[in-house]
Structures are given as C-alpha cells and as structure tokens.
C-alpha cells in the first residue's frame, strides 16, 4: 500500500526531516534524524528502481491532482538511477559527517547544519523525481539555496566569498532556467514535461521555443559547471566543509547533468536538440576543452581540494562528451560516468576530509610523507585516483571504454584519441600526490598524524570499494545506464 506513495515519500521524508532537525536542536539527535532520513531515502530509491526495472515508468499525481494540471512525479529508469546515486551518497556521507562536522564546525548550532543538509538532499531528490518543469525549478532553488549555506559554513573565511560567488552565478543560472520554462509555458500552455514533449514535437520549431531552449541549456550548464561556466565551482568545493565537498561533488552536478539530459532528450527531442540546434558540436567542443583545460589547471593546484574540484570540471567534460554523441553508447557512457564519478570523487573528497581532520590542511606540502602515518586514508585516495586515470578494474576504465567505443562508433577518431590523451593529464595530477605522500620525507604535520577514526574511514572505503567493485562487476551500473540511455533516446522520437 505504502509502495504506491514512494515517489512522494522520497522527497517528503527529508523535507519533513529538516524542520524536525531544527526542533530537536540537540546535536547528536539532529544528526540521527538526518541519518535516518538519508537511509530511508536510500531504501525508497532502491525499491523504486526495482519497481521501475520490473514494471516500467511510475507516475504519481501529487495530492491526487492529475497531470497535466497537477504536479506529476514521474520515475523512469534514468531518474530512478540518479535518485539512487544521490540518496546512496547521502547515506554514506552521513555517518562520516558526525565527527567531521563537529571538528570543522564546532558543536554550537550543529542542528542548523543538518537542517540545511536535509533541505539540500530534499531539493536534489525533488529535482530528479519531478515531472513538472516549474516544480523542477522550485526544487533546484531549494537545493541551491541550502548548498550556499552549506558551503559558507566552511572553516576557511574564503568559504564566504566562494559561497557568495556561487550564489551570484547560481542565481543567474536559475533565472535563465525560469525564463526558459516561462517561454515554454507561453508557447505551449503546459508545464508537465510529457505534455511539453508532445506539444513541442507537434509544433514546428519557432523562435520562442528556440529561445527557451537556449536559456535552458545555458542555465543548466551553469548549474552543472560546464566549461566555461564552471568558475564558481573550484572555490566552492575547495573551501566548503569536507563532508559538503564530498556530498555536493558527488550529487549536485550530477543532478544538474540529469536535468540537462531530461530537457534535451525528453522535453525537447533529438531532432530539435541536435538537428535544428547544433548542440552536439557545441557540447563536444566545450567538453573537450573542459577535459584538457581543467585537467591542466588541476596539475598546478597545491590545495588538493581545489585540485579535485578542477578535476571534477574535467570529469563533467567526459559526461557531457558522452551526451554530445547523441547515440545509445554515448549516452550510456555519460550516464555511467555520472554514477562512476560520484563514487570516485566522493570517496576522494572523503579521504581528503580524513586528512583535514588529522592535520588541518590539504595543502600538498603538508601531505609530504603522510602515507606513512595515514596508510589507509592515502591508499583510498590513490585507488580513487586510479579510477580518475582510468586504470583497468576501476570504474573509470569502464566509463572510458564506453566513451571511446562511442566515439569510434560515430567515426570520431580524433575524439577517441583526445579522451585517451586527457587521461594522461589525470596521471599527472594524481601522481603528484602519490609522489608527495609516499616518497617524500614527512612534514611536521604528517609525523603526528594517524588514520582517521573508523566512522570516517568506513564511509570513505565504502565509496572507494564500490568504485573498484563496479569496475569488475559492471552488470548493475552498465545495465541500468544502457536501459536509461535507450529510454531517453526512445522518448525523443
């Protein structure tokens, strides 16, 4: 009986959890509420994925108001998959958060932190699950506003300017999105995505729809930090609290990418997105520049969180590259990398969080020789790094395999070579850390360190372990990604 209401519960549980956190006030209790809500969200996401895989898309009319008038929550393979990723990352980082947040944020008013976190989670899940274009914008704002708060809570004072910058950029993005949605509503008179899709497909492409398309793509690209709209991201991730960096890096940009997929392939159709609009070539070029430019910048970063942030921009390039192929293999690669990158990058940010917990810095100089005193933490970091490089038997290898096969399929040989070459840049920035941590004489800070407590190590290793596991046993991520890609392309026709 309750299974019928899963789509609503998916969002409502964290949304209700947020004020509850606020009310209980006591720090460990508010943490427990956040933990319970995350885990409940994960359980629901998992059950819904099974439901969708078995029985096809699930539609849920919120409040009993039928679509297209009411708000529809619509779960198909694509967003069931993203829901699972988001809630899984949330569930893994919550146990980690307790010590990490107390260390970086102190104990006073910790409940506000967990309140913002739950709001952010609810927002991200809402963006993913909703089938209504305006509702999507609302949830996007909920998640964005709460993530500005989360970022500004970083220990470093630069977190404030970083959050402010993100606020400005994010608001511009959101404005673009709402303008786009408004234009669509003006032209079609509906906000429901399936309805929009049907009416756009039926009408001939006119300028209003073209303008809406442009606003939406630019707005979403800002949110997902597609080069050259990524400028807010490095500082935001670098100065946010460790747990927030890990959570946002693994979820926020992924959800934005999902929104891009949803608009390009479901709301607009393949014809419009890649035929009338030359978006494939635009995305392709920007993705390739992102892969190279951001990776190159990452090589020269001494703050390792900034390094990972730039690496994220590059990895987003890989995902967008997959989308730009507009083929099943390409989309599979993009969606697969969305999942894989969440695991690797989340795990690596958590590992850096462990380092920060012990030595209070993530500057490469302070990490010299630290592998001696924090062997498990650094081993996790290096394994995650192998994934970024694309070493076989890690998830990164599988993503790259599909990306390259997709490129060769389309006859884009140069792109295939470029993907491989950009991996070498990943070698460079990962190896700098390996050299420093393993083969340099220990710094003063490193001598005193020891591995982080188990409540932080276990979540780190769960993500890193998953990034190895799914590199060998690929049937779940690849199977779901392939199906999601086929559905997206099928829905466009």
């Amino acid at each position, binding site marked *: 009986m309750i299974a019928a209401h899963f789509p609503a519960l998916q969002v409502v549980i964290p949304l209700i959890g947020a004020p509850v956190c606020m009310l209980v006030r006591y720090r460990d209790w508010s943490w427990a509420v956040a933990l319970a809500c995350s885990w409940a969200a994960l359980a629901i996401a998992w059950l819904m994925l099974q439901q969708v895989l078995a029985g096809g898309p699930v539609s849920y009319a919120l409040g009993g108001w039928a679509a297209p008038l009411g708000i529809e929550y619509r779960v198909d393979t694509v967003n069931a998959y993203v829901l699972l990723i988001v809630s899984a990352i949330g569930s893994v980082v919550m146990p980690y958060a307790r010590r990490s947040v107390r260390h970086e944020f102190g104990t006073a008013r910790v409940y506000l932190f967990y309140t913002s976190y739950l709001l952010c989670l609810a927002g991200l899940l809402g963006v993913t699950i909703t089938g209504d274009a305006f509702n999507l914008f609302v949830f996007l704002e909920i998640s964005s506003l709460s993530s500005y708060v989360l970022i500004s809570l970083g220990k470093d004072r630069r977190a404030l300017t970083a959050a402010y910058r993100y606020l400005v950029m994010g608001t511009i993005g959101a404005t673009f999105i709402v303008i786009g949605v408004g234009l669509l509503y003006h032209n079609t008179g509906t906000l429901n995505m399936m309805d929009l899709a049907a009416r756009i497909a039926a009408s001939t492409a006119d300028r209003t729809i073209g303008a809406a398309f442009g606003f939406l793509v630019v707005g979403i690209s800002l949110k997902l930090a597609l080069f050259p709209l990524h400028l807010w991201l490095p500082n935001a991730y670098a100065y946010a609290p460790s747990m927030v960096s890990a959570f946002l890096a693994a979820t926020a940009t992924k959800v934005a990418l999902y929104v891009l997929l949803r608009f390009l392939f479901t709301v607009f159709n393949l014809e419009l997105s890649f035929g009338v609009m030359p978006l494939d070539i635009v995305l392709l070029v920007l993705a390739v520049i992102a892969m190279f430019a951001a990776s190159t910048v990452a090589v020269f970063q001494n703050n390792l969180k900034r390094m990972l942030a730039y690496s994220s921009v590059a990895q987003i390039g890989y995902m967008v590259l997959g989308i730009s192929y507009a083929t099943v293999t390409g989309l599979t690669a993009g969606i697969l990398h969305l999942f894989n990158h969440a695991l690797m990058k989340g795990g690596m940010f958590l590992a850096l969080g462990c380092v920060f917990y012990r030595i209070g810095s993530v500057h490469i100089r302070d990490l010299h020789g630290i592998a001696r005193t924090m062997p498990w933490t650094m081993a996790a970091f290096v394994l995650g790094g192998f994934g970024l*490089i*694309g*070493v*076989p*038997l890690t998830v990164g290898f*599988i993503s790259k*395999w599909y990306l*390259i*096969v997709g490129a*060769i*399929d389309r006859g884009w040989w140069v792109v*295939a*070579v470029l993907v*491989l*070459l950009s*991996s*070498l840049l990943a*070698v460079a920035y990962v*190896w700098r850390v390996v*050299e420093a941590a*393993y*083969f*340099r004489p220990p710094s003063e800070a490193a001598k005193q360190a020891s591995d982080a407590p188990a409540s932080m190590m276990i979540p780190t290793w769960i993500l890193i372990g998953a990034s190895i596991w799914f*590199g*060998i*046993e*690929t049937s779940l991520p*690849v199977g779901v990604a392939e199906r999601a890609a086929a559905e997206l392309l099928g829905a466009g026709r």
Partner: protein
Amino acid sequence: MTPEMAIGFAIGVPLFGAVLIALHDRYPNLRETITIVTAGCLFLVVLSLLPEVTGGGRPGFVAAEILPGLPISFEAEPLGMLFALVASGLWIVTSFYSIGYMRAHDEHKQTRFYVCFAIALSSTMGICFAGNMLTLFVFYEMLTLSTYPLVIHHEGEDDIKAGRVYLGILLSTSIGFLLLAILWTWLIAGTLDFTPGGILAGKAEGPAIGLLLFLYMFGIGKAALMPIHRWLPAAMVAPTPVSALLHAVAVVKAGVFTVVKVIVYIFGTDTLANMTQDDWLSWIAAFTLLTASIIALTKDNLKARLAYSTVSQLSYIVLGASLATGLGIVGSGMHIAMHAFGKITLFFCAGAILVASHKTEISQMDGLGRVMPFTYFAFLIGALSVIGLPPLGGAWSKWYLMLAAAETDRIVFIGVLMVSSLLNVAYLLPIVARGYFARAPAGECTHGHAHAAVSAGAAAAPVAHGGDGAGRLREAPGFCLFALAIGSAGCVALFFYAERIFALLAPVAGIEG
C-alpha cells in the same frame, strides 16, 4: 591440483606472499624466508602446468565478465608457459641475491621492496597466462604501477625524476596507443581472445591494419623500441636486484612477450606476412638493435651499458616476430629465455661489484677481476651467452633468428644480426678484459666492508681489507655469489636443453616438432 587451479595459484601465490611479507615487517629473517618460500611455491605451481601444456592442452578459465563479451580470462599456452617458467624460476634466484644485496647495502624500506617485488611477479604471471588482450592489458598496467616504487626505491630527487620518465613513458604509450589499439581490435573483430591464426585475420586490411600494428608496437612501451626506450635506462636508478629480474627479465620480457602474442594471436603470422608494408617494423627493430648497441659502447656506467644492451636484445625478439614465420617466432620465444639468463647474470655481477667495491663506472674497474675472480668469470659466461657463442644458450636463439631471416629472403637482417653480435663483443668483453688484465689504479684505498657481515651468507665470502688495491680476494656476500653461479650455470644448461624449448614452442609457430 587441476591445471585451472594452477593458473589461479600462479597469480594468487605471489599476492598472498606479498600480504604475508607486509605482515612480517618487523622480522626480517622470517620475511625473507617467506619471499623464498613463495618464490619456490610459485615455481612448483608453474612447473605443474608444464606437462599439460606440452601435451597439447590449453587449460583456462574465465574469472569475471567485465562487460558483455569482454571477460577477464586466463589460458596457459606454450609462449606464456615458457615466460612464466623463466620468470618464476629466476625469481627464486633473485630472491637469494636480493637478501645478500639489500642487507649488504643496508637499504631502507626493505619490506616495501619485497612486497612490490611479489606483486610485480603476480602481475607477470597474469601477463603470461592472460587469455585475452584485455586481461593482458590489466596486468600490464599493474606491472607498471607495482614496479614504480621499486624504481624510485632510494627516494632521492634523481630517483623521483627517473620515476617520472619511467611512469610517463610506460603509461602514456599504453594508454595512448595500446588501449586505443585494443578498443579498435574489439570493434573490428568483436572479441579479444587470443586465437591461433589471429582474430584480425581476414577482418581488416590495407592501411587500417598497418596503423593498428603501429599502435600496438608503439603502445607496448615495455618492448623498448626506439624512440620509446628511454624509460629503461631511467629505470636503472633502482637497486640492482630490480634491474636484474624486472628490467632484464620480467618487465621488458613482458613487453616483447606481448609483441609476440599480438603478432601470433591477434594479427596472425599469415596476415602479417601478407601485409604489403610490414617491413617497417623489421627495419625499426633493426635500427633499434644497432643504435642501442652503439650507444651501449659509449656508456661508462656499467648498469647503463647493460640497459642499452637490453634495449638492443629486445629488438632481436621484435625482429624475429616481425619476420612472421615459424622459425622467427621460435627464435623470438627462445630468445626470451636465453637473454633472460644471460642478462640477469650480467646484472647480478654488476650488483656484486657494486656491493663489494662500491664501483659503478667501468673505467674504475681496472684489475677488479683479480679481486673478484668468481664474479668476473660469471660475467664472462653471461657476456658470451648474450653475444651468442656456443656452448651457451644465446647461440641457439640467434641461430633460429638468422634462419628465419634467411627463410624469408631478407639477407640484410642476417647482416644486421652479425654486426650486432660484433658490437656485443665490443661492449661486453672489454669489461672482462680490463678486469683481468688491466693494472689496478695505484694507491687505491679499498675500504673494508663492515655491513657485509649483516648477511648470514657473508661468512662464506672472504672479506678482506686490502691496502694495495688488487691482490686479495674480496667477493660479494655468499647469497649474491650463489645467485650468479646459478645464472651462469643456466646459460650453459640452456645450450643443451634448447631442444625442449623448441619442442614446446613448435605448435605455436606451426612447425611440426
């Protein structure tokens, strides 16, 4: 033990050994015992596979299916069998040698050294028994990564720079070229399984296959074809046991082994023989072969000279495979074994000289042969085997390579091989001659060797404090001497047992034994 289990054990035993070694960090004697026992077990496991494979069996299994149609699978076939036997057998010898060397040198972080060594051997076994190209690639990369800590063992600024060259070249070629070639092959052939006759046979032609061959040959950086050979001399900053087993046997042979596998099982010798422009590979191999020999002549550092000699010898194997005839394949396969024994002996000697007299430059080694007669005799045997003179193993592989060149009417390569042999004489024998006959530099202070006593085996080796340079014996620790005795004995033994290797390889090459 079924043959399938034996393959699993061949990869698992060294890994398990690595874990045990890591756990016994505090107990050096126990740790070294574990290394030796692991090496011994590995050799026995590999040996247990031999009857099955010589009997024509091709045991194998699928470990995991990474993507549909793309498994991690293993299979034992003659080429891999031979390589596995050589590598695992020499690991035992090298382990003894390492104990003597590392202790006499009082090296730091010895546990890491032995752990990485064991992982490298496990990767090598994975390469030997890989059932398809993807599996081979996985272990190929694992070998690169696991040998990196060994290369920069001393952790100085120079070592880290050399490590960057090592890793940079090996990873960029393998990711940039080899992986692309593998993906392309997969798209053309729909499989990556090693199949006799080649999976590309009849599926690709013209420029595409030429380009693929190019990607493979320069993607396999470990085969050290010029101009991607720079990593090998760079790797010489490693402790000598690493140079001996890994950079004369396991790593470099993994490279040429992959070359031979690709030519035999991916392209198929017939495809290659029918290719119109396949000559370039032979020419590049010939060029590397001669140029590296000439560079070796100019090197005064003993290990650098041996490294360039290795670059040159590896090209013998590539040349043999590129001739794409049965005899060429046999010659190449045989040279993997023959050169392994010859070169490891030479490296053992170089290490022994370093341990006993702290000398690295050939010009400083005048008269040293009279102080270390045993080491120098072993060096002579190894050198003669590398040059290819009977009654030493190296003679046979060169013989078959020349036969292959004659068979395919490419007389010019016979000339190349002969010139190269002369160059080998020119860069290897003077070392021996200077050692035995040149006058030791006057007034040389030969200091005693306090830490040699650390080694249990040191008692066996006469340690003398000579004030007058040459004159008294001053050999390396007993463990080292034992290793180089085995190495040089192997060179002789291979001459008499070459028939067996021929019989093992004949089915691969399509020759009726």
